[in-house]
């Protein structure tokens, strides 16, 4: 066994030698056919010499090619056929030399048949070699679309695939395994286990390889796989060696998966999503890990149109949230509000998500109608005479996120009610009798609640 460096040195002559047999053999065959075409009486003695040169240079190419293949920089299954077809070609070239030395001993059919077989082998072999070096898409990447479609080449470029929601996407199955499949499994599978590592299955991956654990859950420093994919690309140990390195986003995804325990079953929602991985998940996989606002998660049939028209008649401005969302955004824009009008809202209580009664003559007691509005997320009561009593009617609103009480008559006492609205995220209390100290107190005690008091 010669040293790896020296065999690699020999191997690198492969691209140099490999073009010689192609030239010699094609030249020999073309010359023979020209002579046939011209019906030359005596066959040229140079043709067998061209065959011999072709055979010898093919042997040299095969020899150097063998060592180039041993460097492990090529995908195994493609390499296998290229290697053995090449060796067969060497044998065929010598046979050809022997055949052509006696042009008259064999029929034209044998001679030409042999030529054609050799040409076909030569083309396939050359093409396979090109694919190994430049990648399978090199030749057709910039072909006109019509030619690509004839050849059946898929033209899909690397695009963002939108996978779905965080609880339906499994991190290993949907994010990690596709990366491994495209970048690693060609050389780390059931048949070829380079370095003793098989990455085709979750079980075999957990066994690791000769270098120890490929994946050490929760510890990227101990994970040989992570070390190899992040080495300098010049390093002989850098993986994958096929000039098909993992992208930044792929490395970040693998890092996140290992750091968070390398689970093989859990969905994205079970993983801690920090700010570093969030944009990667969004950009690379189209997974939005930010919680959706409540109104986007509700599916509800459209409200009865006659009810809506009636509401519009008594002074409410009614809009749906959008063409794809049947929840309602309602604002009172008439002149005089009455309790009957508020009661009319109860008919569409499950549909109302944004409600503005700002700058109206709303009275505390009327707000009791709102207590069953399960999907209400934003309520505007600013610039009204609402007091603490009115706010106490709102404690049963289970999805209220924003409550505007700016310029109302509420006092510190309303904070007890506000404290009971668990879903509340923002409450506006500027221009009320609520004292800054008490407001600060409640904001400190209640997670996620922002109390906006304003200046002056």
């Amino acid at each position, binding site marked *: 066994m010669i040293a790896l460096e020296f065999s690699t040195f020999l191997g690198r002559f492969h691209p140099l030698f490999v073009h010689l047999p192609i030239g010699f053999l094609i030249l020999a065959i073309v010359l023979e056919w020209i002579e046939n075409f011209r019906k030359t009486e005596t066959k040229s003695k140079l043709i067998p010499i061209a065959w011999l040169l072709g055979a010898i240079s093919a042997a040299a190419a095969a020899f150097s090619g063998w060592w180039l293949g041993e460097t492990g920089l090529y995908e195994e299954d493609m390499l296998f056929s290229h290697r053995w077809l090449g060796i067969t070609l060497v044998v065929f070239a010598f046979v050809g030399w022997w055949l052509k030395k006696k042009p008259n001993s064999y029929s034209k059919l044998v001679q030409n048949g042999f030529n054609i077989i050799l040409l076909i082998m030569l083309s396939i072999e050359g093409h396979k070699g090109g694919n190994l070096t430049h990648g399978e898409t090199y030749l057709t990447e910039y072909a006109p679309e019509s030619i690509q479609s004839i050849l059946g080449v898929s033209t899909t470029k690397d695009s963002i695939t939108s996978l779905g929601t965080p609880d339906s996407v499994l991190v290993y199955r949907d994010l990690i395994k596709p990366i491994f499949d495209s970048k690693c499994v060609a050389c780390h599978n059931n048949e070829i286990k380079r370095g003793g590592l098989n990455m085709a299955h979750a079980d075999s991956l957990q066994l690791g390889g000769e270098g120890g654990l490929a994946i050490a859950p929760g510890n990227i420093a101990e994970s040989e796989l992570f070390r190899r994919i992040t080495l300098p690309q010049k390093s002989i140990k850098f993986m994958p060696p096929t000039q098909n390195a993992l992208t930044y986003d792929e490395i970040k995804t693998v890092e996140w998966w290992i750091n968070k325990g390398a689970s093989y079953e859990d969905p994205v929602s079970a993983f801690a999503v920090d700010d570093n991985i969030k944009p990667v998940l*969004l950009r690379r996989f189209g997974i939005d890990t930010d919680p959706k606002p409540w109104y986007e998660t509700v599916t509800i049939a459209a409200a009865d149109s006659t009810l*809506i028209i009636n509401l519009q008649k008594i002074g409410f401005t*009614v*809009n749906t949230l*959008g063409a794809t969302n049947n929840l309602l955004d309602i604002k009172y824009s008439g002149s005089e509000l009455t309790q009957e009008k508020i009661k009319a809202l109860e008919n569409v209580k499950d549909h109302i998500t944004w409600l503005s009664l700002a700058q109206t003559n709303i009275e505390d007691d009327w707000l009791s109608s709102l207590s069953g509005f399960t999907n209400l997320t934003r309520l505007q009561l600013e610039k009204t005479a609402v007091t603490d009593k009115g706010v106490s009617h709102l404690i049963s609103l289970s999805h209220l996120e924003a409550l505007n009480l700016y310029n109302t008559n509420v006092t510190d006492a309303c904070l007890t009610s506000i404290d009971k609205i668990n879903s509340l995220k923002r409450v506006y209390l*500027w221009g009320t009798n609520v004292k800054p100290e008490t407001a600060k107190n409640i904001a400190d005690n209640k997670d996620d609640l922002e109390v906006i008091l304003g200046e002056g």
Partner: protein
Amino acid sequence: MCTHDHKKNFSRRDFLTKTTLGMGAMSMASLLDPMDLFAGDKQKLVNSFGSGGTLGQPHFPAKVKRVIYLFQSGAPSQLDLFDYKPLLNKMQGQDLPKSVQGEQRLTGMSSGQATLPIAGSVFDFKQHGDSGAWMSNLMPHTSKIVDELCFIKSMYTEAINHDPAVTFFQTGSQLPGRPSIGSWVSYGLGSDNKNLPEFVVLVTKDKFGQPLYSRSWGNGFLPSQHQGVQFRSGKDPVLYLTNPPGIDGKSRREQLDHLQKLEQLNHEDLSDPEILARMAQYEMAFRMQTSVPEIMDTKDESDATYAMYGEDSRKPGTYAANCILARRLAERDVKFIQLYHQGWDQHGNLPNAIKGQCKETDQATAALITDLKQRGMLEDTLVIWGGEFGRTNYSQGKLTPDNFGRDHHPKCFTIFMAGAGIKKGFTLGATDDFGYNIAQRPVHVHDFQATLMHLLGVDHERLTFKFQGRRYRLTDVHGDVVKEILA
């Protein structure tokens, strides 16, 4: 005379296609759903929703119901305000390396210079707030509210001179003639207040520099009631709105009623949709005779408010006064309010000039955002601050220790936003150490426009208008929503 509505005058060809295909479609529809053919309530409902915009209802939930766009015309220097580049101070006076400049074209104003001396900022930069956003000491008030803001430091544009760049930002095309953002919004979403226009423009008075053209708030080929209406300071906020001397409201109303009848006849005859637009505008003007004075009369604003926006805010026509007006318009549900403040074009004497600009704008900008927040209006209002491009990292003209100028730079600049639907205390994108090229997450002007429309509930690819044989949209054939900044 050239909008597609004009085709309501059927030609022989239209008649033949519509009757043949139309009859087919009708029989098909009746086969599929005979009850639906003479659409009853369902159809009525679609029409009754929305605020009179073409879309009827937004494509998806609109996190933003109104926009206040504080346009800083002339291109503020991002390198002296937000984009902190200490390397420039280290390399002060050295020639900008060719490798950094790359293929970037320069304007005729500095392309002839023998050297392009790198000019570091003369202002002190500090990080502010929990978000740690970098700000220079030029904007002390805005620095205090950085945790409300979302910065995009990797904006870029294609235009290199003011007018094409402003036109590009406001209409999506460098060539004049397309509708502005506010007009598209008005056309698509309609109005929430029938007494005021959907799109109002306020320009700081007595500012000079690069001219502003009204096409920046023009309606282009959209029906003309969608153009921005400029409110001025002084006796006549909207020109020609008041009745002529000796004409009272009653006779004005009478006159309009008769005019309506005449115009109606005219329309029946010609079918020109611009006749309808003109009638709508006459009616709007009539309603504005009461609504506009009410808006412009700021007597009911408290002293605390004036103190917050700065003393300038008592002088009508200043940026600060316009910020108060913008808030008043937003309170009355005007959909798109656009301020223009000129004078940021500092080719020379930058350190002094930019101080003046910041003094005029910083306090009021910060006050407007704070004021909207305390009133709960940031729940559904978006504020945008930005110019049309950035400024170079090298000095135009002579570089001295305390004086220099910066030329136009379209390759990178900073804008910020605050309010509904976007992340707070967040910075997207970054430039390289020279502040010359974008290093991370480039955001094109069309991406910005797509994002703005998205926040308003509009799919920018689906709000179109057919004109001269093809369907136009704000973002032409470009633009991707910048999802990273959405909250």
